[in-house]
């Protein structure tokens, strides 16, 4: 019974979180803390911190975390499947429409408007992460003391390496984590 409840809760979370990540947080809180009391608010805050510190979409991270706590590994699997189930159906439907009608002029027009939009959305996300890396939680400030110069240096070096030698981005991220981590631990 509990497995069914887990499935249904995360089904709703997956269904109504459009636009990914941050949009899902209030929905998860509503289901997991308010309705079912599977987690306390403190545990929920911990969950969000951990979800942001680990790879993977926040929805799946929380599904696994809550599922394991409530019903062990089967719980984790059931909650995760529930979370991706609605999007799998809707995306498959959209994919079918896209591949069938992509030659149509209207669809071509819509897509030609969406391509520059996606570039802008990625740029915005990148700038947000850049600001978090350089200024921390406090946000942008012209005060030189609030600038994290280690981050600026790591960013510039990483970008140079990526542009110049087209190195695998995964190595660049890991390298920046290891070198940056070592510097932060020393200072």
């Amino acid at each position, binding site marked *: 019974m509990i497995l069914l409840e887990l499935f249904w809760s995360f089904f709703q979370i997956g269904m109504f979180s459009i636009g990914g990540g941050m949009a899902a947080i209030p929905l998860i809180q509503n289901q997991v803390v308010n309705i079912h009391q599977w987690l306390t608010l403190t545990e929920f805050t911990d969950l969000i911190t951990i*979800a942001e510190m680990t*790879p993977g979409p926040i929805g799946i991270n929380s599904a*696994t975390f809550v599922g*394991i706590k409530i019903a062990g590994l089967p719980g984790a699997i059931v909650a995760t499947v529930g979370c991706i189930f609605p999007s799998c159906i809707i995306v498959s439907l959209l994919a079918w429409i896209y591949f069938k009608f992509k030659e149509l002029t209207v669809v071509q027009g819509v897509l030609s408007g969406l391509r520059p939009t996606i570039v802008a959305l990625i740029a915005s996300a990148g700038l947000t992460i850049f600001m978090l*890396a350089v200024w921390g939680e406090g946000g942008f400030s012209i005060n030189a003391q609030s600038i994290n110069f280690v981050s600026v240096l790591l960013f510039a070096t990483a970008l140079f390496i990526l542009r110049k030698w087209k190195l695998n981005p995964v190595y660049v*991220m890991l390298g920046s984590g290891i070198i940056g981590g070592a*510097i932060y631990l020393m200072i």
Partner: protein
Amino acid sequence: MENKRRIYTKLFISTFYLSAFTFGGGYVIIPLMKKKFVDDLQWLQEDEMLNLTAIAQSSPGPVAVNAALLLGYRIAGISGALVTILGTVLPPLITLSVISLFYSAFRDNIVVNAVLKGMQAGVAAVIADVVLSLGGNVLKQKDGVSVFIMAGAFVATFFLKINVVYIILVCGCIGATKLLFQMKKKQK
């Protein structure tokens, strides 16, 4: 048959590997997918990757899973989609299962925190690299409407914090109107 199995294996390994190293959700994994599937493997064109991203972004659910599903479907049909979904979901499932067992130790660990802080700069650089390439291509087309959409969408999302769904709807409509307008002009 042998060839098909090779494609499935490659799809699974690629998505598993990307998902395992994607800190920060959808917007980080999409540049990585573009690098892997468009630049390295050349299984699809840059334009098509952006189209699929638009669909993934405007559908409910995790963007990374949606994008993986679309890529898998585009390259190897339904079974390809199943393979890429599995590849994308397994890493966070495994990681979180392990971490949930000793999560307070993980959360307060200074080494973990230092490495993650260092990684932020690297993630920002990876995204900047892809934005420079994609944005450069949009500018190269010398199409005023596209540049306007790109600038407007950036302001709308970054400064005005408008819901992404609305931005996508409006920009899609602008694109469609522009193309229909151009066709009418041609007919005259």
